[in-house]
C-alpha cells in the first residue's frame, strides 16, 4: 500500500493531488507527535488507499476523508485526530440526584453530558399532574429553571457540550438558556444538541417524545431553528433520528433511508421559509441505532454518509463542505440485549460499539448490560463507559481512518446498502415526502412489517440469539445490581419544590408571558420559540407552556397503525 510522504511529494496524478489536499487537512487537525506503532513495532499510517492503477474508481466512490464523497469519514483526521465524544444518557430522580451522578460520570471519562427528563416531561405535564409512582423512574424531574439550575450545579455549562433530550417545543433548552443568563454565560458559548427534536420520527416509532400535534410541532421546530441560528449560534437545533425507527423494527437500510427522508423534509421546510441550506445544514446532526449485525452497520453508516453528501448538493445546491458533513451520534441497540445470561450483553455492546466506531461516528452511547431489566443502574453504566475506553485505548481502533475501507466485502456491501437506502428514499418521495408518508401511516406499516419479520426469524430459530433460542442454560442466579427506584419521599419533596417555586414567582409576569406566547402561536409572523424563552424567564413551568401551546397548535395523538 501507499507510503504517504513519498507519494504526496511526488506530485502528478489527480489521486496524488487529492492525497496532498487530504494530508494538509489532516496535518491542520493533528499535531503528530511520535510515530504510531503497533505492538510489533511497525509504523501505522493514519490512512491507507489504493494506487491509481489498482483502483481507478476510488476517487469517485470513496475519496479521501473530509471531502468528496465522504464515504470514509467527514473529517480529514477522524478518530486519529480527535476521538468520538463519550455521551452517556442518564437521568434519574430529582435534579440533585442527576447532578451527583453526572459529576461521577464526568470524572470516569465521559466528555459531554446528556440529560434525560422524566417521562412526565415527555408527556408535557408537571410533577403534580402525574401518577406519583412513575415520577422520576425513567429520568430527572425537570419542570422549571430552578430544576435545571440544580441539575447543572457546578457544571461549567459554557465549556461542555450538552445533549438535551428535549422534544419539541424545547422547554428544557429555554430553561438552559435562562440558567446561562443567570450565571453570566453568554449564549454564544452554549454548545450542544436538541436531541429528540425530530418530531416526525416520534410519530413514526415510539410515541414517546411528542407533546404537540404533527403540524404544531412543525411550526415550532422551524421557529426554533430560525431563532437559534441568530441567538445561540453554536447550538444544533436538530438531530434527525433513525434510532427510534430501527428500535421499533426497521431494518438498518430502512432506518437509514427513512432518516434521510426526514432530513430532506426538514431541509425543504427550512428552505420554504427562505433559510439558506449552505448555512442551516451545518447544524443538522443525526442519531442512529447500532445493531449487532456488524458489517451491515458499518456499511449502513458509510453508505448514509456518501448519500447525504451527494444528495444535499444535488437536491439543495449545497456547495459548503461543512453543510455536507453527515455528523452523527449513535447508541448501541437495546433490542439486541437479552434477559437470559445478562453478562453476555457486555460482549454485544462491545461489538455494536465497534461497528459504530469503524463506521465513523462522532459521538457514542453504550448501553448498560442491565437495560433489559430496568433503566440502567450505576455499576452497569460504568462498565459501558469502560467498554468505550477499552476500545479507544487498548484495541487501537482509532489508529487508522476507515480501516475497513477497501475490503471487497465491505465495499460491495456499502454499494448494496446504498442502493437499498436510495430505494427507500424514492418510495418516500413517491408518497409526497416524509411528513405525508407518516401522516398516512405508510411508514408505520412498513416498520411494523419489518419488526414482525425479525421476530419470526427469532421464533423459528433462523436468527440465533444466544441464551434465547440457542445455548440456553438452566436459569441461574443472575448477578444484577439492585434496581434503583426513587424514594417516594424525595419525589414528594420535588412536588413541594414545584409548589414553592410557583408561590414565589411574579404571577402577573407569568400570566402576561403566557398570554403573549398564545398570541405568538396564533400569528404566523411571530416566533413561538422566542416567546417560550420569554415565558420560561418569567417563571412559567414546562407544563404551563405546553398546555397553552397544545391549546393553540394541537395536541399530539399517536398515529398508530395496528
Amino acid at each position, binding site marked *: 500500500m501507499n507510503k504517504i510522504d513519498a507519494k504526496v511529494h511526488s506530485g502528478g496524478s489527480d489521486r496524488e493531488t487529492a492525497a496532498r489536499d487530504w494530508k494538509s487537512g489532516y496535518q491542520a487537525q493533528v499535531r503528530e507527535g511520535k510515530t504510531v506503532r503497533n505492538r510489533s513495532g511497525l509504523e501505522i499510517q493514519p490512512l491507507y488507499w489504493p494506487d491509481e492503477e489498482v483502483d481507478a474508481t476510488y476517487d469517485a466512490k470513496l475519496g479521501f476523508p473530509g471531502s468528496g464523497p465522504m464515504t470514509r469519514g467527514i473529517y480529514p483526521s477522524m478518530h486519529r485526530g480527535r476521538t468520538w465524544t463519550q455521551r452517556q444518557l442518564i437521568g434519574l430522580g430529582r435534579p440533585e440526584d442527576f447532578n451527583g451522578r453526572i459529576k461521577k460520570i464526568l470524572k470516569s471519562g465521559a466528555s459531554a453530558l446528556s440529560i434525560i427528563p422524566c417521562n412526565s416531561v415527555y*408527556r408535557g405535564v408537571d410533577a403534580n399532574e402525574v401518577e406519583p409512582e412513575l415520577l422520576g423512574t425513567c429520568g430527572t424531574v425537570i419542570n422549571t429553571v430552578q430544576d435545571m439550575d440544580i441539575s447543572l450545579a457546578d457544571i461549567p455549562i459554557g465549556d461542555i457540550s450538552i445533549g438535551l433530550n428535549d422534544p419539541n417545543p424545547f422547554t428544557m433548552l429555554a430553561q438552559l438558556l435562562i440558567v446561562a443568563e443567570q450565571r453570566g454565560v453568554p449564549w454564544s458559548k452554549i454548545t450542544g444538541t436538541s436531541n429528540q427534536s425530530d418530531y416526525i420520527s416520534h410519530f413514526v416509532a415510539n410515541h414517546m417524545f411528542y407533546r404537540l400535534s404533527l403540524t404544531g410541532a412543525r411550526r415550532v421546530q422551524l421557529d426554533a431553528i430560525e431563532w437559534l441560528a441568530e441567538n445561540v449560534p453554536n447550538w444544533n437545533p436538530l438531530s434527525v433520528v433513525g434510532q427510534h425507527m430501527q*428500535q421499533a423494527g426497521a431494518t438498518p437500510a430502512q432506518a437509514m433511508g427513512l432518516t434521510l427522508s426526514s432530513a430532506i423534509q426538514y431541509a425543504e421546510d427550512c428552505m420554504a421559509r427562505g433559510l439558506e441550506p449552505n448555512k442551516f445544514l451545518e447544524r443538522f446532526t443525526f442519531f442512529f441505532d447500532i445493531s449487532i449485525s456488524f458489517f451491515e452497520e458499518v456499511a449502513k453508516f458509510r453508505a448514509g454518509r456518501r448519500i447525504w453528501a451527494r444528495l444535499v448538493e444535488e437536491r439543495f445546491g449545497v456547495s459548503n463542505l461543512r453543510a455536507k458533513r453527515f455528523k452523527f451520534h449513535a447508541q448501541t441497540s437495546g*433490542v439486541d440485549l437479552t434477559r437470559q445470561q445478562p453478562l453476555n450483553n457486555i460482549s454485544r455492546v462491545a461489538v455494536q460499539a465497534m461497528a459504530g466506531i469503524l463506521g465513523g461516528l462522532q459521538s457514542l452511547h453504550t448501553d448498560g448490560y442491565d437495560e433489559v431489566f430496568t433503566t440502567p443502574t450505576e455499576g452497569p453504566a460504568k462498565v459501558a463507559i469502560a467498554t468505550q475506553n477499552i476500545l479507544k485505548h487498548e484495541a487501537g481502533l482509532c489508529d487508522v481512518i476507515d480501516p475497513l475501507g477497501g475490503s471487497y466485502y465491505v465495499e460491495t456491501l456499502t454499494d448494496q446498502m446504498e442502493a437499498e437506502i436510495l430505494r427507500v428514499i424514492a418510495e418516500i418521495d413517491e408518497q409526497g415526502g416524509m411528513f405525508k408518508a407518516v401522516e398516512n401511516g405508510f411508514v408505520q406499516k412498513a416498520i411494523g412489517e419489518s419488526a*414482525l419479520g425479525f421476530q419470526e426469524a427469532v421464533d423459528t430459530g433462523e436468527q440465533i440469539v444466544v441464551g434465547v433460542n440457542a445455548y440456553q442454560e438452566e436459569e441461574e442466579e443472575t448477578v444484577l445490581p439492585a434496581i434503583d427506584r426513587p424514594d417516594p419521599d424525595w419525589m414528594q419533596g420535588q412536588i413541594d419544590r414545584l409548589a414553592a417555586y410557583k408561590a414565589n414567582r411574579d404571577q402577573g409576569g407569568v400570566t402576561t408571558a403566557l398570554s403573549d406566547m398564545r398570541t405568538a402561536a396564533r400569528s404566523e409572523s411571530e416566533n413561538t420559540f422566542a416567546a417560550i424563552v420569554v415565558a420560561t424567564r418569567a417563571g412559567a413551568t414546562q407544563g404551563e407552556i405546553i398546555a397553552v401551546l397544545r391549546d393553540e397548535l394541537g395536541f399530539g395523538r399517536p398515529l*398508530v397503525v395496528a
Partner: protein
Amino acid sequence: MTLDTVIPARVLVTKIGLDGHDRGSRIVAAYLRDAGMEVIYTDPWQKLEAVVALALQEDVDVIGISSLATDHLLVPKLMKALDEAGLGHIRVIVGGIVPAEEEADLLKAGVSRVFHPGSGREEIVEAVAKLAVDAADDRTDD
C-alpha cells in the same frame, strides 16, 4: 365452558402510564390475532379508568399490558380498579421490562403472568388461550 369452546378469546392489548414504545404490544397483538383471537388494540398512555371502561364495554377475557419504561408500577392500581368495577374475572398479563423484585409484587397484586423479553409466539399464545378460558369459566360461575 371448556377448552374446545368455539367463542374466540377476547383480548385487550394496551399501554398505560407515560411511555409510548409499542414494538412489543404490536407484535403480541399480531400473534394473538393470527391465533384467531379477537384483539382490541389501543394507543399508548391509556388512563386506568379508560382501560377499565374499555374492558367492560368490549367484554374481554384477558388484558395485556405492555411496559417498557416502568409503567408496570401502575398495574396494582389497575387490578384494584378492575376488581371494584366487578371485572375480577378478567385475567391480566404484563409483558416487557419488569425487574424480578417487581414481578413478585405484580403477581401478588393478582397479575396472572409476566412475560419478559425473549418470550416466543407459542408460549404467549398458549398462555393467553388458557387464561381466556379460565376467565370465561369464572364469569359463568358468577
